[in-house]
């Protein structure tokens, strides 16, 4: 079966840099519709940046990001906002609105984009909160939640309007094993039953391998490998192997670029 018969996001020749540092240089990436696509890579490679580029919050230096043939970087402000109504995004920090209760946070997208009556909104919100296991917490404020709970509320908010495309930025970080298992199932289940297209940014290898249909591995400003989880696990490239198996030694350095360790210690320069 070909994954790319029906592509919802088509990124072509995308380049982006912050100051002198190139985050992406001419990458190509396709996200198939209705599938779970994972973007993986060592931290600092700009995975979150990629989500922000897709959401139009950052503008690339060059290249195009086509979502159903609309080129995101060239859209006007109001066109961009209408495209975003089809997207949901789970932020790494959760990014809940601190002046609203959990209930109001999840209800917010529904209230601004639909005219549904209050009792219907209540039902939808409670269903979404039930899905993430926090229905009982609906009248708490975000400051009363733990980091993992806040992220689950944010997930409920991201899916409250059943968007076509859901982007998850590190959904598994900070979750206990039970919540982690539930979340993995939930993302899979939502994707299959509602026909979402999901994009997961993560470096939790085992969870991501278990859930993703297709994986892009990003390092050094480009895509170093892509394929199904099975394909990636059998790739022989040392860079890919190192990341997939979490090995400390290999072509991907663990250390930030630095002068020689011994020379640095012995240089004796005062601070």
């Amino acid at each position, binding site marked *: 079966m070909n994954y790319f018969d029906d592509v919802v996001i088509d990124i072509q020749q995308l380049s982006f840099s912050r100051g002198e540092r190139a985050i992406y240089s001419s990458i190509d990436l396709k996200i198939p519709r209705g599938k779970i696509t994972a973007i993986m890579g060592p931290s600092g490679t700009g995975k979150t940046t990629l989500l922000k580029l897709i959401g139009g*919050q950052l503008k690339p230096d060059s290249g195009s990001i086509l979502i159903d043939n609309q080129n995101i970087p060239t859209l006007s402000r109001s066109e961009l906002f209408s495209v975003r109504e089809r997207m949901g*995004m789970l932020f790494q920090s959760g*990014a809940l*609105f601190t002046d609203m209760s959990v209930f109001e946070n999840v209800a917010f997208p529904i209230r*601004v984009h639909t005219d549904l009556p209050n009792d219907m909104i209540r039902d939808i919100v409670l269903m979404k909160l039930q899905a993430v296991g926090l229905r009982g917490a609906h009248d708490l404020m975000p400051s009363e939640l733990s980091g993992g709970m806040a992220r689950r509320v944010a997930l409920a908010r991201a899916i409250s309007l059943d968007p076509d495309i859901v982007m998850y930025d590190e959904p598994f970080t900070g979750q206990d094993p039970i919540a982690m298992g539930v979340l993995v199932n939930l993302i899979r289940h939502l994707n299959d039953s509602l026909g979402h297209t999901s994009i997961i940014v993560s470096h939790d290898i085992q969870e991501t391998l278990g859930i993703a249909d297709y994986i892009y591995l990003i390092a050094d400003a480009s895509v170093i490998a892509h394929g199904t989880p099975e394909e990636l696990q059998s790739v022989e490239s040392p860079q890919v192997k190192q990341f997939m198996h979490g090995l400390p030694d290999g072509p991907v350095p663990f250390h930030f670029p630095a002068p020689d360790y011994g020379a640095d210690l012995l240089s004796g320069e005062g601070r």
Partner: protein
Amino acid sequence: MDKLALLGRHGLDRLAAFGRSSMILFQALVAKPQPLMMFPLLVQQIYFVGVLSLIIIVVSGLFIGMVLGLQGYTILVDYGSEQAVGQMVALSLVRELAPVVTALLFAGRAGSALTAEIGLMKATEQLSSLEMIGVDPLRRIIAPRFWAGFICLPILSAIFAIVGVYGGALVSIDWLGIYDGSFWANMQNSVNFYEDVMNGLVKAVVFGFVVTWIAVFQGYDCIPTSEGISQATTKTVVYSSLAVLGLDFILTAVMFGEV
């Protein structure tokens, strides 16, 4: 040469910031206003920005009016014209002190709070998540806060002037024993509605615009870290105060300069 380049760099940065702030203001206010969505948010912000500033404005107004009465009396009594203290209190309040002091207090009380709130929303990605939900933060967050400040400052300034006049009267009439008839009559004869009251109000409107603009822009444009937010808050208070004092001179020169 390096210093010259640095100066140029600095100037360009300032110009760019001014351009950005104008764009933000334009997009928040002019492009497609949504009065229905805005109204409840505006009422909420008027409460936070205006009603909660009332105490500091009323207390300051009362004391400044009382001090004016006292100071005016000690000077005027030497010339035997202490009856004119009402006129002095009212004119200095209505023309100068009410708009200027209110704007300065407002920058410290409400402007800094606006900057910190918006800056923290930026740092905690709440503004980004609004954008991703498909809601323009300029319209949802910036616009109601801007309008609230713009509406509240002139009202607060008027309250300041009224309370100040009352404070002046309290000291002059009840304490120093000036005849209340001449206190009020002198005031009534000398304060002109258009020249004094309206000009004072125009000042307050201009200050309201500038102070709130600076506050929301500094919050929206801040570097989203704790250090960045603290710098932005400081900038709000410093820039607003300087802008208020500078504009006050210009406005006074334009309004009363030809006399």
